[in-house]
């Protein structure tokens, strides 16, 4: 069996896996007008701009805002338990929802430094193995 190489289609409009960057993932954010605040996921239109919002790539580093361990039978073949939460993305004003790396669960706490990477984790709506973006503890990157 070969490892999956792609995000599910529902996620590929919101994230991009960087080539040759140890699986690091960037967020595809949008902007509310030329000088407006960032939005994520990107919204196609903003109230004060005539053109569709262009995607803006944002590095996936930040600090944990809140997290929880989900202990019920997991969807999409995720492990039991799995952790999800919100991360404040550095310098953007964005607080984004995401999965946490199963290898980083013990360290999770508000304020923990994390970065977004791609992991072979679970399946997509088509039932096939897929990549998912997960936040891992930043010091685990080395």
């Amino acid at each position: 069996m070969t490892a999956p190489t792609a995000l599910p289609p529902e996620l590929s409009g919101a994230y991009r896996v960087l080539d040759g960057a140890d699986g690091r993932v960037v967020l595809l954010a949008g902007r509310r007008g030329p000088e407006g605040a960032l939005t994520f996921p990107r919204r196609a239109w903003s109230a004060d701009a005539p053109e569709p919002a262009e995607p803006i790539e944002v590095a996936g580093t930040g600090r944990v805002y809140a997290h929880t361990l989900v202990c019920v039978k997991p969807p999409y073949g995720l492990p039991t338990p799995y952790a999800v939460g919100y991360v404040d993305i550095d310098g953007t004003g964005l607080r984004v929802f995401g999965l946490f790396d199963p290898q980083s669960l013990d360290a999770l706490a508000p304020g923990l430094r994390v970065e977004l990477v791609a992991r072979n984790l679970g399946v997509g709506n088509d039932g096939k193995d897929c990549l998912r973006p997960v936040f891992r503890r930043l010091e685990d990157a080395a």
Partner: protein
Amino acid sequence: MTTVYVAGTGVLPFGRHTERDVVSLGAEAARAALLESGLAPGEIDFGIFANALAGRLFGASTLGQNVLAEVGIAGIPVLNVENACTSGSTAVHVAWTAIRAGEAEAALVVGAEKMCVPQLGLINSGETEVDTLLGLVTPASFALRAARHRHEYGTRPEQLAAVAVKNRAHAAGNPVAMFRKPVTLDEVLASPMIATPLTRLQCCPIADGAAAVLLVGERLARRLGCRVRVAASVLTTGTYDAAPDLAHWETDARTARLAYERAGLGPGNINLVECHDAFTIAELLHYEGLGLCAPGEGGAFVEGGAAALGGRTPVNPSGGLLSRGHPVGATGVAQVVEIAHHLQGRAGARQVDGARVGLAHCMGGDKDGDTKSCTIAILQT
């Protein structure tokens, strides 16, 4: 604009109705509301049916026409409403606006749901949503709020569990509640973990059920001798900010401000509340959002007994979603029925003595760390 009154109510016991379908449940509740009102089916000029899941679970659509036809109502405008957990309360709101606008004089609102089926699975915001693909299930979105509330205010697991204990005690006096056996704090905390820190007894059960309310304008209210009026009804959505604040529910507070303003009342005037306690942390956040206590004080509010029957502002005397059960499309209607029964002085063992003003609050759906829909109706005698 005319004032809107409650003319009739109907509610079925919430729980498992294995042998019945959504139409049968809805029709029984509708029939009860009609009989209570004294109106004939031919006098109803607007029908609204609320349901959230029959399309997904049974491939059904436009069931409102089927439900109303069962009780002899046809040939009038019928609207089917899906708005997640606020499907029922949104239907009530639409009926209220139609009567206020003079487009209807007697609007029958029915909410019904059948969830106790094997194909239900986990409830989420939709399989194409980014957050769903990343593992967001409904208990997790509330557990994250509990985690953040604890981080900012030190709210303890025992304070969260106190909500479940209180609502189960209330449900003991409600013959239509799904769970009526009291539970202890230890039992709540020791039940299986669902999403930290929320245990199973802090999560509302799925249920089958139905409720109906018949709203009328002033002319019919005089004829029927109605006493309970809708002082305000508000429907809002979340704002989906870039950085959602999980420890404070701005949408709650904004909706409450609008409702209080339109009713000319404040939180101090409210004698009882039915709110969307899908999870214990939700009720605690609603205390704060509705202005029953200050931000961060929800834990102390419930722990000190202020939200219990006999307390300063009883919350969820029905047992709430946690103990009465949560058949999604029926819940928002059942909340209004519960408030009406207290204001009419016929709520039995759980009656809030001397109740004259009650508030029904509901929320539905997740989007970007906020709710998709929020409703508040204030009823008054």
